[in-house]
């Protein structure tokens, strides 16, 4: 028999609407707006926004036990499977050729990770714990899956804001970088043309490169093995040309499916009270610090190289060392062309950018090692 209490129970959805949930739904609408209308990394922000919206509906069964969003979270976030699978696809789409043609660019990638550590210190000063600070710092890797992987291990409760910050700012790279690049360089520096080598990269080298990097980095920083291993596995599959079916599957079917699941699952971690704390704002603020410091360090280091090489290095390409593959390289080319339309820096910038990609992963592993070794 259906009693009078049933009616009350039927309205329990409405009665569980809270201020927090309304604010969070508003926030998810903002994420959807940024993704759809503003075009900020829609492949990630749309699923994250949708996951956030669905998780904050009152009494949402999707995040209850056996709820779909929780199933997805357990399937690939808790064990870090999803970001690693995405890395295979990224590796399959990355061309390390420009880096191989000009190996000295490797160092630019290292400089572009300085923001990670500055942000870590800033986060400590704001009162975050060490693992939290390291997770926030990793926004400065400016590489989505690396941020997800590291913060998923060190501070899973901050996964939501960190991922959102990482991807949002990454899509803002064309806006964030140019003022920094112009402010730190002189016009004559920006006019430097960089010559190209005649060096032809053999297929053998292209195949050996990912293997070599995996073995060296993996041996010296075991914590980086999963990240660098999957990135280089994808690259090896592409360069070998022997397993086109697998390369395509990694870069398309697997990457698309995992991106959708990953976004939904990360969005579902952004629930009400846990998210709506001042620290979320602090993370968003620290994220922009991370991007800025990265770019500055990259450009300044490139200026040093410029001096050392007696003017043969255009300092602009330092900004491509921050990672944000491959947008940063295009921004560099655009800024260079504003000064000299015929200056063709793209391939050098691509080299620095690929170096930044590797350096981000290395920095992620180093950070995990430092936390695992002496920080926890």
């Amino acid at each position, binding site marked *: 028999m259906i009693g009078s209490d049933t009616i009350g129970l039927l309205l329990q959805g409405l009665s569980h609407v809270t201020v927090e949930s309304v604010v969070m739904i508003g926030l998810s609408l903002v994420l959807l707006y940024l993704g759809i209308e503003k075009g900020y990394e829609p492949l990630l922000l749309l699923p994250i926004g949708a996951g956030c919206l669905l998780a904050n509906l009152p009494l949402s069964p999707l995040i209850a036990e056996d709820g779909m969003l929780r199933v997805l979270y357990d399937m690939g976030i808790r064990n870090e499977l999803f970001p690693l699978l995405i890395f295979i696809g990224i590796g399959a789409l990355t061309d390390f050729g420009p880096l191989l043609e000009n190996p000295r660019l490797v160092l630019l990638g*290292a400089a572009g990770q300085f923001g990670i550590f500055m942000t870590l210190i800033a986060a*400590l000063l704001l009162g975050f714990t060490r693992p939290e*600070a390291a997770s926030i710092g990793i926004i400065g890797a400016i590489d989505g899956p690396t941020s997800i992987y590291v913060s998923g291990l060190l501070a899973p409760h901050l996964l939501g804001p960190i991922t959102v910050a990482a991807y949002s700012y990454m899509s803002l790279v064309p806006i964030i970088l140019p003022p920094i690049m112009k402010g730190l360089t002189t016009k004559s520096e920006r006019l430097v043309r960089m010559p*190209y080598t005649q*060096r032809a*990269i053999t297929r053998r080298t292209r195949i050996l490169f990912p293997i070599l*990097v995996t073995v060296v980095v993996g041996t010296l*920083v075991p914590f980086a093995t999963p990240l660098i291993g999957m990135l280089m596995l994808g690259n090896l599959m592409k360069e070998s040309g022997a397993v086109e079916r697998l390369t395509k599957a990694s870069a398309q079917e697997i990457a698309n499916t995992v991106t959708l699941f990953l976004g939904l699952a990360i969005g579902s971690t952004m629930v009400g009270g846990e998210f709506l704390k001042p620290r979320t704002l602090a993370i968003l603020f620290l994220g922009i610090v991370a991007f800025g410091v990265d770019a500055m360090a990259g450009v300044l280091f490139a200026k040093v190289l410029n001096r050392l090489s007696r003017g043969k290095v255009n300092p602009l390409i330092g900004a491509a060392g921050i990672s944000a593959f491959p947008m940063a390289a295009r921004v560099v080319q655009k800024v260079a062309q504003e000064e000299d339309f015929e200056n063709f820096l793209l391939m050098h910038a691509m080299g620095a950018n690929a170096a930044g990609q590797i350096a981000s992963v290395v920095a992620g592993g*180093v950070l995990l090692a430092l936390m695992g070794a002496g920080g926890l």
Partner: protein
Amino acid sequence: MENLLWGLQTTLLGMGLVFSLLALMWGLLTVALRLDQPSEPAPRAGGPEPAPAAPEPQFPPGLDEQTMAAILVATLAHRAQRRREAAPAMRSYWPGSLLYASRWVGAGRAVQNHGWRRGYR
């Protein structure tokens, strides 16, 4: 305060490690690339042979150069159109990827193709 000290240590150690690792990679790459060179026999030895003259185009009677060109253009335009329309699955490389842009890249290179080691300003 202790946290700050720890942070500074982490920064020092971290950036040091990142730089060392990438410097190590630079060294290894340089060695690997140097080892790689000899395997390619110098292609320039003796100077490049003159390319064989292109065969003169033969047209069947009743199909003059203009018609041939029209057919060619229609086919190429159609091919480009198909390529644009095609789902991502059809493309070997994603639009905007480096490889897809190879002609532009090639053009840019041609403008600036000077040896890295030779003096250049």
